[in-house]
């Protein structure tokens, strides 16, 4: 391997954000420096109040070719959504 700093994926939780969101990636020698760099690269305008860093090679992603088997089954299950059921108006809000 060449002497290249590993790649880190950066996740930031914004002021009013409910969860950390992926914002991008950067190179850093270790986790501590990754957080310092993430602060400079991804929070220059108050974008966040919390940072997670994960080394990119620790992330396992689903494959695009599995899109069919993974997500198609849920397309036919419309009854999982509340709007599938008609509630009589007389019953009121539900």
């Amino acid at each position, binding site marked *: 391997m060449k002497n290249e700093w590993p790649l880190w994926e950066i996740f930031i939780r914004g002021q009013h954000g409910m969860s950390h969101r992926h914002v991008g990636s950067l190179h850093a020698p*270790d986790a501590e420096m990754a957080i310092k760099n993430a602060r400079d690269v991804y929070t*220059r305008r108050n974008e966040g109040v919390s940072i997670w860093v994960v080394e990119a090679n620790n992330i396992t992603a689903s494959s*695009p070719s599995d899109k069919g088997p993974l997500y198609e089954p849920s397309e036919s299950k419309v009854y999982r959504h509340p709007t599938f059921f008609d509630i009589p108006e007389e019953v009121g809000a539900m």
Partner: protein
Amino acid sequence: MYAQMIKTAGTGVKSREEMTEQERAFQDKIDADIKIEPKDWMPDDYRATLIRQIGQHAHSEIVGQLPEGNWITRAPTLERKAILLAKVQDEAGHGLYLYCAAETLGVSRDELTEMLLDGRMKYSSIFNYPTLNWADIGAVGWLVDGAAIMNQVPLQRTSYGPYSRAMIRICKEESFHQRQGYDAIRKMAEGTPEQRKMAQDALNRFWYPALMMFGPSDKDSVHSAQSMAWKIKINTNDELRQKFVDQTVPQAEYLGLTIPDPDLKWNEERGHYDFTQPDWSEFFDVIKGNGPCNTDRLAARNKAWDDGRWVRDGLLEHARKKRARKVAAE
């Protein structure tokens, strides 16, 4: 435009009949505005062209720090200094977003850096012009960032997901760059006769180099058709240049400055300004490496890379040792 004269890989636009089934499915996704993501199949030429384009764009952001960094220590007030510092820091950030987008295509950061340093990859011609005085810093923000925005706003819709997301982040920040530049040059245009003269002189020197940023005229851009079909180029060079002129002329008029083009005039029929094309022989000369600052810029980047090597290596070694110690303790 921060990416100029990107040679599109491949043999040009294929008809649907000439495409393989995979290529057809790929083009259909692009036509339907579905983003292409790193793990999706893509033609090798699409990948190669994007690496060139995003790489050149990233290099431009990084080299673009040099002409402005030149004036950080000599900014006229503490406020202007803080603003310029923030702006130059943004440029570093923009370079990093773009390098990361390029890396998702399978090229490493070090490879990209090395290709810049040994001249195999280019950066925008505009950064080979010097910033001689403080008025130039205003002109760069106003004109150079203004021209960059023109190109970057449509690129937010580009077909490659990571590139598109980088452009969206960049555009959010870029407007500050142009406005701080206009604000700085306005201060001078409204200042003493001497300051006013400096502002006019900066406009005189940066006008044509700014027009060159969009790349050669459409009739000389042989590679656009395929890049446009792939939606990695959204508008033609001439379209964007015209848009830039139309937008900038009234801004100059407000400042009471004169665009250095005696033939510039409003064309009622076209609904656009007619203007003089830049000297394209100068452009090709600068691209070839003969601009006023090419040697300095590349020397500065090479020096930074070489001088920083012990820091990069040292931090990596420190991280390795720390990890080893942790493993030993367990």
